């Protein structure tokens, strides 16, 4: 349906009467109205999955809160985005998330936690991380009952099974973005999916097959959409491990990929004259934020010694 054939709907947003396009989400209407709604699992270039629940708003007459990222506006709807109920839910969601996942690399999370006064430490000290392979072998419908003195986390060692990117699922908030980017929202490779159930749910290849043996084509689109740093360029990971990651020394340069004729926009992040990360703007009309293995990881030649004459 093209935009002009859609009607407009009028509804009340935080006491103001506003107009929105029919079929638009509450979140989109909030953005138009200048209301900053927190989001973690939402992204401009992916289908909303409404799982993080940090964008919830109160719709009058509804029994429960609604995820603004996917709930469509309706004529006459009365929406509150900053009611005590909304604030309390957002605070609790951030606390639950922060208590179970390492969110230290998400600046959005830090901002939201401050805004809503979230205290992820209130559930007690964090439990020790699991040993490698333990979370992957959990049986659905079963868990070991502890004494409750330590807050369970998804903590586990980083998976390093290739030279291009690492998977640090200690930082995985299960936003489904990587699965969507690997699947029908971008790459259509379907190398990863959510496996397991409940607190043991995780992102996995079949039978935890290492990425090089899986269907992965190393486009890195999963890395590109990851909001928490759980998926990270190996170059960045190594620098961080060595304590040499230094954002003050980094620059970002936009360029066009030199491999084929599509003309993808690349944003190169450089530290000490080395490329440490390659992204593409999610609002780019050419890429929609997504790249292929060459544009994403094929930059070694730039750093090699001068070209042959």
């Amino acid at each position, binding site marked *: 349906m093209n935009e002009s054939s859609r009607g407009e709907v009028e509804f009340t947003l935080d006491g103001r009467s506003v107009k929105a396009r029919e079929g638009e989400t509450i979140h989109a209407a909030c953005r138009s109205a200048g209301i900053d709604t927190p989001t973690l699992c939402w992204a401009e270039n992916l289908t909303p999955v409404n799982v993080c629940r940090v964008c919830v708003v109160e719709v009058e007459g509804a029994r429960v809160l609604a995820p603004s990222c996917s709930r469509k506006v309706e004529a006459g709807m009365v929406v509150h985005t900053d009611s005590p109920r909304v604030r309390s839910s957002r605070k609790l969601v951030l606390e639950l998330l922060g208590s179970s996942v390492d969110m230290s690399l998400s600046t959005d999370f830090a901002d939201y936690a401050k805004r809503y006064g979230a205290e992820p430490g209130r559930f007690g000290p964090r439990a020790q991380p699991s040993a490698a392979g333990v979370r992957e072998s959990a049986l659905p419908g079963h868990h070991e009952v502890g004494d409750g003195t330590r807050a*369970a986390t998804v903590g586990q060692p980083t998976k390093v099974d290739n030279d291009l990117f690492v998977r640090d699922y200690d930082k995985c908030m*299960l936003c489904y973005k990587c699965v969507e980017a690997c699947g029908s929202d971008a790459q259509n490779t379907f190398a990863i999916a959510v496996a397991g159930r409940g607190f043991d749910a995780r992102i996995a290849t079949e039978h935890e097959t290492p990425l090089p043996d899986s269907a992965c084509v190393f486009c890195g689109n999963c890395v590109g959409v990851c909001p928490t740093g759980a998926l990270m360029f190996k170059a960045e990971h190594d620098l961080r491990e060595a304590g040499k990651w230094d954002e003050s020394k980094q620059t970002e340069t936009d360029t066009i990929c030199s491999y084929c004729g599509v003309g993808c926009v690349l944003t190169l992040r450089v530290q000490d004259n080395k490329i440490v990360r390659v992204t593409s703007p999610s609002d780019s009309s050419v890429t929609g934020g997504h790249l292929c293995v060459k544009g994403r990881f094929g930059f070694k030649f730039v750093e090699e010694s001068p070209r042959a004459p």
Partner: protein
Amino acid sequence: MDLRHHDVLPTAAERSAVDALLGVEAGDAPPAGFAAVRDARTLLLPALHALQSSVGWVSRGGLDYVCRRLGVPPAEAFGVASFYALFSLVQRPQAFAHVCDDIACTAAGAEKVCSELERKLGAPASGHAKTGTAHEDGAGHGPRWARSPCLGLCERAPAALVTIAGAEPKDCAFGAATASRIEAALAGSPPRIEEAYVASSGPRRLLARVGVADPASLAAYRAHRGYEALARAFELGAEGVLREVTESKLVGRGGAAFPTGRKWEAVARATARPHYVVCNADESEPGTFKDRVLLEGDPFAVVEAMTIAGYATGSQRGYLYLRGEYPLALERLSHAIESARAGGLLGANILGSGFAFDIELRRGAGAYICGEETALFNSIEGLRGEPRNKPPFPAQVGLFGRPTAVNNVETLVAVLDIVRDGAASYTSVGTAGSPGTKLFCVSGSVVRPGVYEVPFGTRLDALLALAGGVLPGKTMRTILLGGAAGGFVGRDQLSLPLSFEDTRKAGTTLGSGVVLVFDDETPMVPILRRIAAFFRDESCGQCIPCRVGTVRQEELLSRVVNGRSTLQGELPLLKDLGQVMRDASICGLGQTASSAIESAVALGLFEDER
């Protein structure tokens, strides 16, 4: 999509089990074309069942073969297989026992059964096991049993389910489980089938044929007024059926109490086609077994009622989604569907009406969440059983994205009387707000646990009296009303009339009709922690409030149980958790995960222990 498969081949048994389901003609060829792949995906769950029931687990080779045949990406198939508790991704002994340790069974001594089993058979499967690896000798090793959530046999608690894989798989579920009865069943000698105890306070409507008509005989069903309702439906016309159902004020019996007539009308009027009917027989709410009793005792009634629903809503296809832990119901329903088909009561031109309708039986695989209607759709579609966000509601966007009428078993069976005798007759019993009769699952410390049919408005104490009252020598402590997602009520609430409006007024719920009686010898705090553990285990893991909230709630109760803190000290946290789960979770599981526990706090059930 460029699928990458592995070089692990299926065994002959795995291949033949999958081929038996999918046909052999196609050989290894995956479905060609987008539509074929999309349509094949819905066969993923049946294919996984074929593997599990033929060899006792889902191996790498078996899973890969299914993926090749269906065109499903291996990572996604693994994501689906690892979602369900009845699928083992680790090689297991072919005979395996699932032993219920949920609330009703715990109160009936399940822990004793479990500790004796542990002594005789070794430790249960729990926690962790590496997936995909076969033992070198090809035989199953390792644990021979696991603990299980409610198996829906609460009237004969403690309960067990034994599955024996093979070319002719044999599953059996039984009550009054003891370690030796479980061992005998594992060795191939299951106990004799026992029918549930049913009773009523007046003329039986829902239970009219249960224990009376042979559930395996279409002739017996017809001799007991079977298919009179469908004949009457054809006389009334689809509009007439919608009118009667709406006027009967029938509301859903699965727990949410949504008006059935409104749901059916919305589907009937929806312009998108085709329409579907789904019978939600994934009864898994702890303490609930009424649907099992109907499915086992009157399977043709479910088939007939689904046909009427199809007629009224303009659907030609129905799916009956049965929980995986009900082997007897599976056998009887399969037989009923086949007999109805053979008798011209399913298929083209039913009873000469020109109306065509057929039913496909789908088996769940151990996931409480699949009783949530949209999770159920995803499960049928071959996806993980994760609930969808609502709106859109199933009447607009349901199974396969089409308008769908999804109803609980008891709701459907109630429709038969409404259509046959008219709405006026139906509303002549019950209360003004809740007409008709209701099935209650009475279990725990009562003399005659069973399924009871009483008119709405019957007082709680009258229902208990019907069940023979509290066991001699015991004193009632509390009653869990509505299941784990319901709430506890106290001894001072025995005069409560059992109707939707009265329970709502009293701040509780009828839920799925659970009336689970606890005496004062049952320690309540471990029961509450078991409820918390249940929700943690059964959360699908999709949304943060439920995925992490259920964990924190259980940790909190563990601290109280272990004396690390006091209930009083934990109350603010408990309330906050309850609030965020109720307000921000995607579906009813998270939204009700704290309700029983919060009601127990209000009743002071924590207090005189410790």
